[in-house]
């Protein structure tokens, strides 16, 4: 191709790169919010077999997730209440919140009772239902007991509405009667351990995971609390809610991105400057890499609509691999000296780069097969980034670095590389080679023996201890459940669903009786099934069958005849239906527990409280039809385990593929070329075993990358050596350079705050490091060795 052709192609590539940058800027900042996803659960695939379960998990996440639960604590009762009141007022002034609940609106006790009066003969507590059906039941005595209760008789329901107290007993079991929080001075208050706790709830004006919403809400809370606590020293604020966790995750990831991105950029820059002893190669290498990374970003945003934080962190690390292609090219240029011709240079490195790109793409494509949305993003990001970086070497770099290099590669590096290369080659051939291999395997074997596995979800989500502690305290004070485990009860009609829930509740009640469970919240406790309500009426019916005798009982007990008649006129009343309940204002806080998906598909969520042992909870649902315990953390852990097993198979498959490609290219020498990456993987696993680090899915993913990158090095050695015969060690020097840049970026992931990325980084550090050190072993023995 002529020089003009070269320039034309470079120009076109330049236009492409520029427009990509502009498109990327517009995608990132052109819209209202930055399309960066911080919800860690969003990167997980659906884990539940029941389609409704995923919807239920979502619904719970929103009911509990898009709000802040704040608890103000102070040893001084008045100060606690005053600061909570001021916090509520200050928060309501902020635009970040949709609704703030601090001071309760004034309401009548009647509002709790009146809506239930038409249904009073259908709603009985389990104890009353049992007592009423005993042969020894004496309504006159039950009445006398109620009328002569110590101190107060008519709190809650009035005597004329509920002379026996049956409705009152049922109301006593409703969730708002059982909450440890009581309305006091119009605030939801609890007293524990000498402290007064006051709850304030603030609903966000959007999703907890939305960057803007997050920032506004946290800023607003800080301002409001500063204001509210100023006059009340000693007031403490406990906080929980998805927004705090999301913000912590974002801050951690941003820190990671900066540390990894900046440190690796600086490190690579210094390394390149030292190696090439000229700034031009540095700029060229960074340009090529930057074009690759920006294209990857744009492609990911176009394809997925948003980019996950994890992908960004991973992308920062990918710099180290993308820069390899330009390094190979620039090394060839430096080695050629004055005889450099850009076109010849491209021809020289093309086979190696294409082979390297091929194996990398293969590795990432396998990663993309894992049905984790975030892993797919990473794979897409990596494949586009690698491809564009490689193309930039073919099309852009020949023009940017057309002139021969004025200085050769740093002699120290070449000398170092040459020395190590000779050592490795001496040990890697003939009988000695076999002995060394056997020795390495013998050293590694005990490590392999010790390797364990871990699929815990906390690899992904490791919330800051301070936040977890506050959440635990708030749960202890307010009695809120943990929300990550719940029962899903389904049915084709509301009636069937409620009946199944009642079967579950029977089991739960016996757990409560055995002190294995604190309690639960479910719809059937607030709207019993029609079957149950008819059973309640049936239990009452014998006593109401003769109105005259019931009237006599009431009047004899001392009730006015007019009151008795009015009460009897209410019998038998109605059955409370789910729709009637849903339209009561009282049900508002609990409506999210009921799901009507249309098409004869109903579901009810039952939230257990006060038991964190999943085995106990699971056992309670055993054998019940259409009742299942949804345990998102456990499902995710199980999923991790499954994919970890697949990942080990995939690694074998990838090895076979790469082996096949090598056999096609190198024939009988293929095992030798494959040996360094293979040993890199094996020894890295052994090292992890010795270190006592159990293997996770993320270790296996990293091992796949070790294979991809390690194979590159073997290829670069094998393909590059013939062109650098005049400069022994130069080819290996370029490989070492690639490896160090990779280690600088991937290895830094080992510093990440996220356990998953940390595992990823450490595995790559070990694997790539070992592979790079062993890479000279892939050269044939016929190489001249002085």
């Amino acid at each position, binding site marked *: 191709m002529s020089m003009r052709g070269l320039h034309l192609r470079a120009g076109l590539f330049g236009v492409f790169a520029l427009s990509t940058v502009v498109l990327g800027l517009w995608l990132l900042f052109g819209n209202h919010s930055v399309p960066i996803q911080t919800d860690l659960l969003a990167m997980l695939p659906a884990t539940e077999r029941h389609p409704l379960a995923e919807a239920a998990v979502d619904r719970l996440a929103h009911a509990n997730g898009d709000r802040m639960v704040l608890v103000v604590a102070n040893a001084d009762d008045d100060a606690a209440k005053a600061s909570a009141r001021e916090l509520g007022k200050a928060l309501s002034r902020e635009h970040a919140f949709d609704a703030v609940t601090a001071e309760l609106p004034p309401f009548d006790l009647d509002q709790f009772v009146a809506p239930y009066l038409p249904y009073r003969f259908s709603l009985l507590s389990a104890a009353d239902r049992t007592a009423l059906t005993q042969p020894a039941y004496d309504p006159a005595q039950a009445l006398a007991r109620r009328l002569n209760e110590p101190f107060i008789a008519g*709190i809650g329901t009035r005597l004329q509405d509920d002379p026996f107290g049956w409705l009152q007993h049922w109301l006593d079991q409703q969730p708002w009667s059982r909450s440890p929080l009581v*309305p006091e001075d119009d605030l939801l208050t609890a007293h524990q351990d000498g402290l007064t706790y006051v709850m304030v709830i603030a609903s966000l004006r959007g999703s907890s995971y939305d960057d803007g919403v997050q920032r506004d809400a946290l800023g607003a809370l800080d301002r409001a609390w500063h204001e509210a606590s100023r006059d009340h020293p000693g007031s403490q604020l406990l906080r929980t809610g998805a927004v705090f966790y999301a913000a912590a995750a974002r801050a951690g990831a941003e820190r990671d991105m900066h540390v990894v991105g900046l440190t690796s950029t600086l490190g690579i820059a210094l390394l390149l400057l030292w190696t090439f002893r000229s700034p031009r190669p540095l700029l060229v290498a960074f340009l090529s890499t930057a074009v690759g990374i920006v294209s990857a970003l744009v492609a990911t945003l176009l394809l997925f609509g948003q980019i996950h934080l994890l992908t960004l962190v991973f992308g920062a690390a990918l710099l180290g691999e993308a820069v390899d292609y330009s390094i190979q090219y620039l090394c060839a240029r430096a080695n050629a000296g004055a005889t450099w011709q850009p076109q010849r240079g491209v021809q020289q490195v093309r086979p190696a780069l294409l082979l390297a790109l091929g194996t990398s793409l293969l590795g990432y494509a396998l990663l993309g097969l894992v049905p984790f949305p975030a892993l797919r993003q990473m794979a897409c990001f990596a494949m586009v980034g690698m491809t564009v970086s490689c193309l930039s070497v073919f099309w852009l770099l020949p023009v940017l670095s057309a002139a021969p290099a004025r200085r050769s590669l740093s002699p120290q590096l070449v000398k170092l590389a040459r020395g190590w290369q000779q050592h490795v080659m001496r040990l890697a051939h003939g009988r000695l080679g076999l002995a060394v291999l056997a020795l390495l395997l013998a050293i590694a074997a005990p490590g392999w023996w010790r390797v364990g596995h871990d699929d815990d979800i906390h690899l992904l989500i490791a919330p800051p201890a301070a936040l977890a502690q506050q959440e635990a305290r708030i749960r202890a004070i307010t009695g809120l459940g943990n929300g990550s485990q719940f029962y899903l009860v389904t049915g084709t009609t509301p009636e069937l669903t409620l009946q199944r829930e009642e079967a579950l509740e029977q089991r739960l009640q016996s757990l409560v009786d055995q002190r294995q469970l604190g309690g639960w919240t479910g719809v059937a406790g607030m709207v019993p099934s029609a079957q149950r309500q008819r059973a309640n009426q049936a239990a009452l019916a014998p006593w109401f069958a003769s109105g005259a005798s019931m009237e006599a009982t009431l009047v004899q007990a001392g009730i*006015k005849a007019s009151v008795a008649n009015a009460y009897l006129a209410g019998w038998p009343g109605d059955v409370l239906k789910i729709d009637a309940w849903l339209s009561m204002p009282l049900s508002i806080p609990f409506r999210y527990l009921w799901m009507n998906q249309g098409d004869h598909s109903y579901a009810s969520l039952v939230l257990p409280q006060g038991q964190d042992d999943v085995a106990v909870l699971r056992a309670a649902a055993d054998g019940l039809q259409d009742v299942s315990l949804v345990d998102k953390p456990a499902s995710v852990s199980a999923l991790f385990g499954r994919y970890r097993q697949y990942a080990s198979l995939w690694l074998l498959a990838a090895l076979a593929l790469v082996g096949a490609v090598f056999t096609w290219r190198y024939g009988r020498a293929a095992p030798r070329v494959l040996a360094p990456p293979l040993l890199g993987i094996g020894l890295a696993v052994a090292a992890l075993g010795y270190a006592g680090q159990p293997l996770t899915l993320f270790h296996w993913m990293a091992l796949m990358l070790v294979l991809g990158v390690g194979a590159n090095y073997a290829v670069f050695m094998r393909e590059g050596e013939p062109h650098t015969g005049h400069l022994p060690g130069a080819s290996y020097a370029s490989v070492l350079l690639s490896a160090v840049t990779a280690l600088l970026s991937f290895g830094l992931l080992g510093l990440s705050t996220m356990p998953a990325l940390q595992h990823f980084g450490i595995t790559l550090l070990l694997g790539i490091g070992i592979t790079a050190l062993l890479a000279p072993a892939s050269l044939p023995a016929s190489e001249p060795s002085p």
Partner: protein
Amino acid sequence: MRWLIVAVLSVLASGLHAQETDLLRQVLAELAAHPRVRADFTQSRENPALAQPQLSQGQLLFVSGNGMLWQVTQPYRETLALTGTRTARIDDHGHLQVVRNGDRGVAQVSQMLQSMLAGQPEEALRQFDVEARGSTSQWSLRFTPRQQRMARVLSAIELSGNEFLQGIDVEMQGGERTQIRFSGTRDAGTLSALEARALGVP
């Protein structure tokens, strides 16, 4: 212990007139001097739904810090153990059956009385304004709810007495009035095994 009660009280009741504070303090100290008390009671209740007042009689056992046994002998027999926020019925076989659990209604009032009689008025003063009248030989304390929510239901609770508590009057907004009169009040002496178990006394 007494100095502590007095100290706490003087801080909490700082809103009261000095004289009233003195009286309240003395009354509470007097009541706290009898940590275990037995008495016979008569309760009469008027309610708009009732044609004539309800009358019941029985014995009360109060153990400071543990709760009370409300033992009705007329017109029916029933023993209730009011401990903290829990109300339990003791059946004929001496078994405890929880009737109610939670700090609402009866439990709320009984809890307030328990803390008052134990000389620990913090909880009561958080919920009620107190008006003290008379002298230590014949006093009355009138508690009116500070919480609007409670004031809608409960008008006032009045305690009266001398060395011991003599009467409790509960007035409800709906027109219910409950009067309890105590007689034969004496220190409790030893508790029976059942009493000790019901009140959780070691």
